[in-house]
């Protein structure tokens, strides 16, 4: 077949979120890739400039569902650094526990999605079953399965009761056993090895040159991990290892993520067993002094960077969010060239794309083509009108 343009997206079963790749393929080999990321853009950075610190935290949580705690914690710790505010140790430990539980649920989700991309639905069903245990723990602690709402400037909003800690600790042995089984399965299942080995290989130099972050980079032997490079929260006191691999292909990324699952379990167990007593929040001032900071955080997908500039008022003047998925797109475009068409979903899934993080909808009044912002009252009036019409029918 001659060169054809195959549109992958914006709606496609391989993608969990809308993104438009236009793949230019020659038979089954990919020649070129064009990228369009605008489908999930919601204008969050602009909205965050108009909200004070209390209101902006829930907004930033909703940048992404799977790494919601990462965004909120990163912003909170950045603002606390500008304010020179020290949060109590119990709050730091609670934030760490939630962060590592989030990492676990994200990696289990990824393992299932990667298995689904190669048609291995059994592993998909099993990992998502185990993810339920993590979600149950998170729901007990925070009241929600995603968007936990645990953070505020100065600490956390909810405490962990001893009963919750016990319940969480009792779920950990089952998860440890399952993670051990998954590690064994990943290393010995024949079709998984066939589809993942040698696919989407990036060498160490390429990773550094194209700026990949997170497990994508660590699979090629690059050992940047913000938890060790620039310790924040409780990571300076908790013993853990940074998991790297040398193969640099999708198989290496799978092994890194499974290894990180094991490490997260250890961190959660340590934090739950050694959590210090004390208050959970410090009194934070309403306004922040003038300053700026580059706050970095190891989200499940890689390094998340918030650049925060404050100007003495109670609102941030600029919040610049650089998500790990945005950093990884260049490397995807590079390693897709000359691969098979069948490997596209595997390679794209290997960076664990979170497009809601990448793009941040102006509301358009569709009925008369004008643009603007619909207020809540208008929405309510519109809904009532629609219901009246339905009743008349």
């Amino acid at each position, binding site marked *: 077949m001659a060169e054809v343009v195959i549109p992958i997206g914006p709606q496609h079963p391989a993608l969990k979120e809308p993104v438009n790749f236009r793949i230019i393929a020659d038979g089954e080999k990919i020649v070129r890739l064009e990228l369009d990321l605008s489908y999930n853009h919601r204008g969050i950075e602009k909205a965050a400039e108009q909200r004070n610190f209390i209101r902006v935290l829930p907004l930033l949580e909703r940048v992404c569902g799977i790494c919601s705690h990462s965004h909120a914690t990163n912003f909170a710790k950045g603002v606390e650094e500008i304010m020179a505010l020290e949060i109590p140790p119990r709050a730091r430990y609670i934030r760490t526990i939630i962060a590592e539980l989030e990492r676990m649920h994200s990696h289990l989700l990824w393992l299932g999605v990667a298995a689904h991309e190669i048609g291995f639905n059994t592993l998909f069903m099993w990992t998502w079953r185990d993810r339920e245990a993590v979600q149950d723990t998170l729901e007990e602690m925070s009241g929600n399965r995603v968007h936990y709402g645990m953070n505020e400037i100065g600490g956390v909003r909810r405490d962990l009761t001893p009963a919750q800690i016990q319940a969480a600790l009792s779920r950990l042995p089952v998860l440890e056993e399952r993670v051990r089984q998954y590690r064994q399965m990943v290393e010995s299942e024949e079709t998984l090895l066939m589809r993942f080995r040698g696919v989407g290989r990036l060498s160490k130099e390429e990773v550094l040159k194209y700026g990949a972050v997170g497990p994508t980079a660590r699979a090629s032997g690059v050992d940047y991990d913000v938890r060790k490079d620039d310790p924040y929260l409780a990571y300076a006191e908790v013993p853990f290892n940074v998991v790297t691999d040398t193969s640099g292909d999708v198989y290496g990324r799978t092994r890194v993520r499974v290894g990180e699952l094991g490490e997260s379990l250890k961190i959660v167990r340590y934090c739950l067993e050694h959590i210090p007593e004390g208050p959970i929040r410090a009194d934070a001032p309403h306004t922040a002094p003038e300053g700026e900071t580059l706050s970095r955080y190891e989200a499940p997908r890689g390094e998340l960077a918030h*650049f925060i500039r404050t100007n003495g008022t109670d609102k941030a003047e600029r919040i610049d969010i*650089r998500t790990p998925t945005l950093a990884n797109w260049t490397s995807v475009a590079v390693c897709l060239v000359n691969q098979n068409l069948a490997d596209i979903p595997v390679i794209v899934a290997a960076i664990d794309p979170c497009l809601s993080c990448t793009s941040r909808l102006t509301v358009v009044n569709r009925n008369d083509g*004008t643009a603007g912002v619909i207020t809540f009252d208008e929405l309510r009036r519109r809904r009532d009108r629609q219901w009246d019409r339905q009743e008349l029918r």
Partner: protein
Amino acid sequence: MTTISTITERLQGFGTAEQVRSNRVRLKTTPDRVRDAITVSQVMLGCDRLVTISALDHGTTFELLYHLIGPHRIIISLSVSLQRDHPSSPTVSDLLPPAGIYERQIHDLFGIMFPGNPDLKKIILNEDWPADEYPLRKDWKPRPESFYGGIKTERL
């Protein structure tokens, strides 16, 4: 052994450098010297990765910050100040390939031109977006007569 003091000293030639945090150095420089500063950071100061490019709107000027990091785990932030009308800064996407995506995004949202960037088309705003409106500027409000994308339907 590159410590933060050696970095600060080495970068003084390009502008004013100061240490703002235990592991971050901030250098204030101009658009025509920023490429040399990046090359020096890569070659002599051991920086091998670009963390991000941040852009800010100060009302009368724009500010671009390039954050670089290396195995020494020290962040070098290079700050460049641009004037308000026709802001432009030379591209660094040939020195640091990930800058391509970041510059495209900043161009979409702020309107800063990057001469030399091979592919400056829309990445984060949809293709129907009007050409000269830059949403993240402080003085931008959605205009009622512009069409920002989506589907036009008649009022039912």
